[in-house]
């Protein structure tokens, strides 16, 4: 049978790179998408050489609707049919709302919300209904919990959660398997994560390694899991979140914030 082909957005670094390697190790051909000059050609060469799958690259900024469309136009003209879409590209932040400018938030919403919706639409329009197709949307535990300093990011991930759950219902009888990945913090690109080595206790225990998250994500996706929460501590947090009353959760979050609350 023809090998499956997967699109991975945000593939040059972090979780996207680990997911690309995980898919390639399962002999799945890849279309890697990332910003120009983010090292995509080198990554593609490395994967071809070491894992022997076909790798196509597409360098572009997905905050533009034309670029999203351009990706699928290119694939159509190259006669590449996509069986798997991993909506991974995203922009995070850890800052008080007032500390980032409006341009940042606009870009964050365009990349985290608009791009996955458009790509999902374009992807579903071209799937081969004879074969099972897979959609994996990367959400976040921040989409389930209210996390201060992640106000817009968490809200975009809540959107992804809602969007994914709704599609799961709409497409229940189709040949498309839809999964939501809800990871906690991941130890990825170190220049973005100056915080992680300072974390302690529970906060530290929720940090997971990207290759582990990638394995659980792809494993869960092929099993048709509706939601994948990597890491034991993270699963426990979700259970606690469901059973604790709201005022206690608020107290915990506020007490954690006390040393850093802005006056």
């Amino acid at each position: 049978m023809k090998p499956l082909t997967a699109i991975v957005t945000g593939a040059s670094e972090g979780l996207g790179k680990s997911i690309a390697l995980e898919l390639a190790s399962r002999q799945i051909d890849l279309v890697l998408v990332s910003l120009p000059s983010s090292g995509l050609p080198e990554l593609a060469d490395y994967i071809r050489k070491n894992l022997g799958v076909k790798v196509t690259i597409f360098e572009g900024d997905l905050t533009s609707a034309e670029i999203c469309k351009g990706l699928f136009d290119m694939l159509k003209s190259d006669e590449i049919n996509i069986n798997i879409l991993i909506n991974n590209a995203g922009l995070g932040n850890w800052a008080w709302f007032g500390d980032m400018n409006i341009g940042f938030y606009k870009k964050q919403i365009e990349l985290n919300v608009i791009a996955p919706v458009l790509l999902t639409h374009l992807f579903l329009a071209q799937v081969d209904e004879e074969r099972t197709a897979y959609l994996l949307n990367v959400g976040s535990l921040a989409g389930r919990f209210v996390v201060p300093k992640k106000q817009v990011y968490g809200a975009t991930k809540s959107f992804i959660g809602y969007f994914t759950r709704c599609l799961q219902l709409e497409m229940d009888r189709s040949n498309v398997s839809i999964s939501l990945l809800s990871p906690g913090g991941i130890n990825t690109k170190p220049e973005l994560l100056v915080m992680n080595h300072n974390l302690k206790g529970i906060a530290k225990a929720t940090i997971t390694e990207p290759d582990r998250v990638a394995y659980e994500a792809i494993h869960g996706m092929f099993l048709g899991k509706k939601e994948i929460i990597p890491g034991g501590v993270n699963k426990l947090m979700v259970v606690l979140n469901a059973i604790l009353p709201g005022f206690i959760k608020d107290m915990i979050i506020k007490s954690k914030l006390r040393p850093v609350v802005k006056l």
Partner: protein
Amino acid sequence: MRVLVTGATGFIGRNLCLELAEQGYNVVALCRDVNHQYLISHKNITPVKGDILDRPSLMAAMKGCQQVYHTAALAKMWCRDKNDYYSINVTGTRNVLELAMDLYISKVVYTSTCGVWGPTIKHPMTENDPRIDGFAIDYERTKYLAEIEARVYANKGLNVVTVNPSRVYGEGPITDSNSVGKMISGYLKGKWRIIPGKGTQVSNYAYLGDVIKGHIAAMEQGVPGNRYILGGEDISFNTFFDTLQNISGKNHGMIKLPQRIIEAYSRFEQVKTNLTGLPPVFLPEFAARLRKDQKYSSQKAITQLNYRITPFAEGMAKTINHINSL
């Protein structure tokens, strides 16, 4: 010519000082303790008390030098305060590069590590290959960040070349940073009897003498802003211990410890360290690494720097002789 070497008491730094001094350079050896037991005394080596985290002392040492070798780093597997990795490896490197810029140093060689790539899948890593693993190991993460600093200063116009040694072994003191030396010395004393997993995991072992020559060649011929892997042969644990056994003539029954036991033990060690603050023997992030190979290609350095690799058996024989003489 006057050259500064930071980390002059380190495994690479001290031998680099000696080689440069022998070649007639005037070596300023930066160290925190000028009476340190590993500092080499030589008529061309001037020990200067200083610290890469103390800018005035670093400035005083660097003034009047034309070249700088920055080998100082925190290379241990574990230290009590994890922030030390960031301050020594990243802030310290930034201090060296910034002062080198201010003082119009003509060229800097920065000693990084193959750990910035970490594990490999099939073929040996080259300078252009991406890192494929996360950054669970503090040393690797902070050395990666320090390379970014070197790139930033190269873009600002500083003439800086990065060298990436693999696992370095050779004639030098047995310390926590010299993990290969610890393994060889442990074997010779009959205390190291373990082969991890099936013994098939491959690592790259670079002979210290080659690495020192590679540093000097990088200073002479290295292209500004480039990096060069300074490695050796890719060797499995089985080959490593077979070679060690053949050359030393000491035949200890080795135990192949299954990977899962190593991982379970490393988790126990982590709990112990978290509760007691005692140094761990081994940590989970290192146990996980034993599942993967670490193969590196020195081809770029061989072509551009005329780098030479001493055959593993030859380097091992010299190392065993040295350790036996300690």
